[in-house]
């Protein structure tokens, strides 16, 4: 694997859109060509090299390309958008849409990420060693097709709209969430190791949600069924098993209605 190291040396006045900073875009390009890639600030396009120092070499394919981002990327959006393979390591906080619509490969953020992290994620691994804001692994506005695959891990806390319209894949939150976990979910698994204020599994059709901490306000549409032992992210524990949302439609399979499972650690 070849590595391209990019060090941010100049901060934008506003914010930068870096949707072309991906292994797919860098693969097969020289350092000069990578430096010429468009990065925009509002309506003005700049070459990447005008904001950052670029070193190293890309691989022939995305899978063989690793990108390391150093310096301050706090005001940069869309890093890793739609990538299919390869790796990105961001040693900084980063802004919105990190790993948006990603299909494969691996992104690691050693810092906090902003909102819309992992939006409509379809595959790969996206890890935030820090906090995220809102709309983590959620769908784009209006699209009933949200996250469909991959593993999205946030070690810290998150805000609202975790896995909205989720269909597949796994989201793991190490800390707390605010409200709206798995809203309109139709599949996939969400694990929150901390607490959630409320609205867990609201309007959820199908899927599995695990909460290790407390839920301050349970949805009335969740009904206790039994206690079960589950292994969650490698740790076994006993969970109170609820099904719901009883206020939502649910599919039937072989004559049996399928509900969303909500597991609350005991």
């Amino acid at each position, binding site marked *: 694997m070849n590595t391209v190291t990019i060090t941010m040396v100049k901060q934008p006045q506003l914010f930068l859109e870096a949707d072309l900073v991906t292994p797919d875009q860098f693969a097969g390009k020289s350092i000069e060509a990578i430096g010429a890639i468009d990065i925009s600030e509002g309506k003005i396009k700049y070459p990447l090299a005008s904001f950052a120092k670029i070193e190293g070499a890309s691989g022939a394919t995305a899978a063989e390309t690793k990108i390391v981002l150093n310096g301050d990327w706090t005001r940069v959006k869309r890093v890793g958008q739609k990538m299919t393979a390869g790796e990105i390591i961001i040693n900084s906080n980063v802004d919105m849409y990190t790993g948006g619509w990603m299909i494969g490969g691996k992104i690691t953020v050693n810092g906090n990420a902003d909102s819309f992290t992992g939006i409509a994620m379809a595959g790969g691994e996206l890890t935030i060693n820090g906090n995220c804001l809102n709309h983590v692994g959620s769908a784009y506005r*209006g*699209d009933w097709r949200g996250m469909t695959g991959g593993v999205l891990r946030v070690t810290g806390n998150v805000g609202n709209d975790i896995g909205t319209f989720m269909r597949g894949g796994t989201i793991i939150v190490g800390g707390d969430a605010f409200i709206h976990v798995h809203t309109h979910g139709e599949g996939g698994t969400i694990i929150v190791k901390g607490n959630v204020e409320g609205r867990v599994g609201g309007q959820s059709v199908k899927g599995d949600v695990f909460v290790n901490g407390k839920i301050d306000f349970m949805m009335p549409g969740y009904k206790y069924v039994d206690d079960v032992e589950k292994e969650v992210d490698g740790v076994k524990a006993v969970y109170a098993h609820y099904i719901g949302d009883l206020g939502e439609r649910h599919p039937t399979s072989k004559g049996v209605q399928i509900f969303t499972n909500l597991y609350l650690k005991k």
Partner: protein
Amino acid sequence: MTEYIIKNGCVIDPTQGIKGQKMDICIKDGKIVDKVSKSAKVIDATGKTVMAGGVDIHSHVAGPKVDAGRLFRPEDKLFKSPNRKSNLRMEMGYSVPSVSKTGYDYARLGYGFVMEAAMPPLEAAHVHEEIRDTPIIDEAAMPVVGNNWFLLEYFKNHEIENAGAYASWILNATRGYALKCVNPGGTEAWGWGLNCITIHDKVPYFDITPAEIVKGLIETNEYLKLPHSLHLHSNNLGNPGNYTTTLDTLKLIEGYKPNNDFGREQVLHHTHLQFHCYGGDSFKSSSFESKSKEVMDYVNKQKNLTIDTGNVTLDETTTMTADGPFEYHLTHLNHLKWTNVDIELETAAGIVPFIYDPKTYIAGAQWAIGLEISLFAKDKERCFITTDHPNAGPFWRYPRIYKWLLSAKARNDLIDNGLKYGDKVRDTTYIGELSDKEISLYELAQMTRSGVAKSLGLSNLYGSLKTGMNANVAVYDIDPENLPSDPEQYETAFGNVFAFFKDGVLCIEDHEIVNYSMPKKTVWVNSIVPENKQVERDIRDKFLHSYTVDLENYAVQEEHVHNPYAIKVDITE
């Protein structure tokens, strides 16, 4: 003004019986003329097809439900919109395009006129605002009247003169072109969450049947001598087994004769027929079947009937119709988001996204039925190509439909390699029986130009290259003397017109839009009837008691109608 000469193209013009003859088309001061001076700009059409600008009889492009469709589908724009060209406005949207994209894309297809399929009278001003902001194409709109409280009451007592006076008032107030009827009676029933499925189901409270409504509207239309006939979307759309309702409805025309001074020969135009030709009792391949042959047998026999196809294009698209109860049914089938607007005293609208997935049996069957209609049609001057845009697919897919009709190879190729259940589709539809059939370019021109204009009563404005016509002319990269062996070229050529003139202004040159600011018209019918005090009183009464706007604010004010072109139809003369 500029002169042009389109030289040496193969002209196809059914209004003059020209079948590919090499000739020059001359344009001067916005019109087609016999000859021009030597300073005329030359468009070299050697090896190309020249047709009149296209005419679309039914498309949802301007108005409240189209806009609601745009508004509630941000995902129809995301990563699905082309990049803006530097000399044009932004183009947004895939299945429900923004108004700029609508005008540009129709021009790229070589179309000069589009009929907005449904205008709710109360919201007519909205339709006119969008028409104003849509570049290039001339437009008209049809007010929906098939569930209108005034008409339901007049038809109950068979008061055709009163119905005529009211319908005339509506055409004038809304600057509408023709009388549109959607799901007769059923959409009023939907005001209570109910529907009318057969032509004999009674409308709650108004106690009238769809059959009585349709017959009443046909009689009213002929009484008013309108350029177009009644334009009908019959009951029971989209449901398996509905072909019986369709045939029952079509038979209502028997005994009626067209009454107009515009050359129109039909008393009824049935729209998007594909959705109305279903047999069986479920969408499963074990039950569903095509009844297009049965329906087209009737259509072929009746001279006073025109239809448009409503072809499925196998895309993710957006359904939108005044058939409110159908959309409620659809959202329960696919569980997708559903928008509905019931409009006081008048009509309703429903909108649901829909994916015609070629990996499903039913989408393949619907696709086949749409093509069967054109292939079974004996008189191509009475059968027009549409997609009920965007219901069965986006309008900019028309060239793909042409390809499937012009090339049996392309069609059969899709069944074999593009449909997951191609065999089941062949077993349950007539598409296998029609596997050799192809249409000609001449027939294509009938189905997209001459026949359409005639049905609309607009033969003197559109669909023809006769001397004196407004110069809407399209030049395509298809050589009729050397037809392409690769059918994809049909789709490419008809989707990217080589040159396009709109009212004699060069709009597209070398496949690129060079001018989109030429004037465009809003065509409407100014209907004049004898004074009718009863109807005037009824109107005042209903506005006072039931409407929520003042009567004096209802009719669209002159300043809100863009470049109106009124066609006066005075029955008092």
